[in-house]
């Protein structure tokens, strides 16, 4: 296919980027100036920006501790997601009785609002004896339905011929997943990693309920400190939000490259 001229694409993308970045710009700006955003007229450029609200954040909450907790929990979640979802998705690409039922079940499960499962989920976690543990924090997110379907869509696109060939070579199923499916679905893997990381990283209500031990609190729970009713913590609040945001963006940047490989190169062979 012949390539269209680049400039209209740039133009369109610049407009999009502008609208996407506008609110974000204000978060960033406020984190550097701490100004009262309800002043009028709004100052479009940061006035006397300084990094000290980030220093405040560092001292308002046990930042390192919370950060490490978040890292540990998210690492568990990401690993579990890639493995469990890949397995489940692979199963769904195979014909077996009850498959449609499982799919419909998953799709509907996906949409039970977490708020209403809070109490029973807590009781069950207690029964498992993993309240106040990293496992207890991570377990509910060990598999996420969206990501299962991301994998499924990607696996469905892998030519059957490849799989059958592998079978005839007597390759074990788990190795088919590992050696054929995943390498041909790097973009799906990247999506899994990014999304499950972000969900577990920003998860708020569950850690709030399941951890009584302050040493186990995750980063988002630090939020409470910045919504004070007495102090004016505006600057620190937004600095905090930026700090919570950063790792997700970093991961996205790192995983970016996977979105241009994937099956596009793989499908032709095999």
């Amino acid at each position, binding site marked *: 296919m012949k390539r269209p001229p680049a400039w209209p694409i740039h133009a369109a993308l610049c407009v999009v980027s502008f609208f996407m970045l506008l609110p974000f710009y204000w978060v960033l700006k406020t984190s550097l100036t701490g100004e009262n955003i309800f002043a009028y007229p709004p100052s479009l450029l940061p006035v006397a920006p300084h990094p000290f609200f980030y220093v405040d954040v560092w001292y308002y909450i046990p930042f390192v501790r919370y950060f490490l907790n978040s890292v540990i929990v998210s690492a568990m979640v990401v690993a579990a997601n890639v493995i*469990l979802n890949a397995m489940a998705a692979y199963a769904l690409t195979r014909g077996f009785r009850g498959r449609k039922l499982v*799919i419909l079940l998953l799709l509907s499960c996906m949409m039970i609002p977490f708020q209403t499962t809070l*109490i029973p989920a807590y009781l*069950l976690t207690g029964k498992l004896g993993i309240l106040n543990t990293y496992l207890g924090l991570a377990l509910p997110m060990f598999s996420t*339905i969206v990501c299962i379907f991301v994998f499924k869509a990607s696996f469905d*696109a892998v030519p059957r011929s490849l799989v059958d060939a592998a079978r005839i070579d007597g390759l074990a199923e788990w190795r088919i997943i590992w050696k054929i499916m995943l390498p041909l679905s790097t973009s799906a893997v990247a999506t899994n990693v990014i999304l499950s990381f972000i969900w577990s990283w920003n998860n708020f209500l569950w850690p709030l309920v399941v951890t009584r031990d302050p040493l186990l609190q995750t980063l988002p729970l630090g939020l409470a400190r910045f919504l004070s009713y007495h102090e004016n913590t505006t600057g620190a609040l937004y600095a905090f939000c930026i700090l*919570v945001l950063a790792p997700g963006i970093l991961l996205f940047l790192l995983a970016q490259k996977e979105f241009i490989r994937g099956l596009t190169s793989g499908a032709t062979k095999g």
Partner: protein
Amino acid sequence: MDHAAAGPALRAPARPGARAGAKRRREAALAWLLLAPALAVFLLYRIIPLGWNAILSLQEWSPFKPAVWVGLDHYREMLTEDPTFWEALANTLWFTASAPVGIAIALGIALLVNTDVRGRDVYRTFVFISYPLMTVAVGIIWRWMLDERVGLFNYALRSVGLIEQPIPFLQSFELALPSVIVANIWQIVGFYMIILLTGLQTIPRNLYEAAAIDGASARQQFFRITLPLLRPSLFLCFVIGVMSSFTSFDLVYVMTNGGPGHSSELLVTYLYKAGFEMTRFDYAAALTVVQFALLVALTWIGNKASGGDAGAVERG
């Protein structure tokens, strides 16, 4: 969980000459084995809790009181004497109806950033950046941008002279819900984008090459190849859209808290209020059950619409 253990047992299916019935059984066994861990998680944190709600919805219960059976009383109250429920339901459906808009936008963006235009990675990041941002920040910032007197939008519109009177986005009954929806789309569009990007990667280049050789225009290629093959991802986005309309609690809570009146109340915010603020978990449970039934219906429709089987496109 542990493939190595499963491995040897699973050799069989491919062995030539295995009897069809046995083969199918092994296939099924294998499938369930692979599904087991994921399903276990959902059983624990979705299905059992849902059952808990189902039972609770037939009782009179609060954390401080033992349960008493009241049959369908809560459902009767909900359907016959609770206008708020109907308002919240309508709003939720409006919210759901807005999903395609966001998806369309995201699709456009995804197609653009999937070309090999320079600086593509930067654009992608810009579009995605809103998604991982904490909802509290999103809510507060949008509250301010849409504010009647000091908000950025009104400021901009007034300074370019587009409007005389400022628009009270969040203070008016007509605009509160749309405002929340816009903010929601703003936040979720990056999410849609990467789902669609992943989908686009599953479309083999050679198809386009072939089509190009047959002299198909870019438009035709889009409608003949991209769209059909992207169906699974589009369906997934639709499901996500529905989901977000039934679960995006934080955004509404921060931006409007369901007001003014109940004009931006969603089922999820309403049942949170019912449960944790009015300590009526039993009633909240009934709401949950109704909402769940609704969702199953919606998903089922969407599923059918996308050609069944979660929009999966069988090939090979």
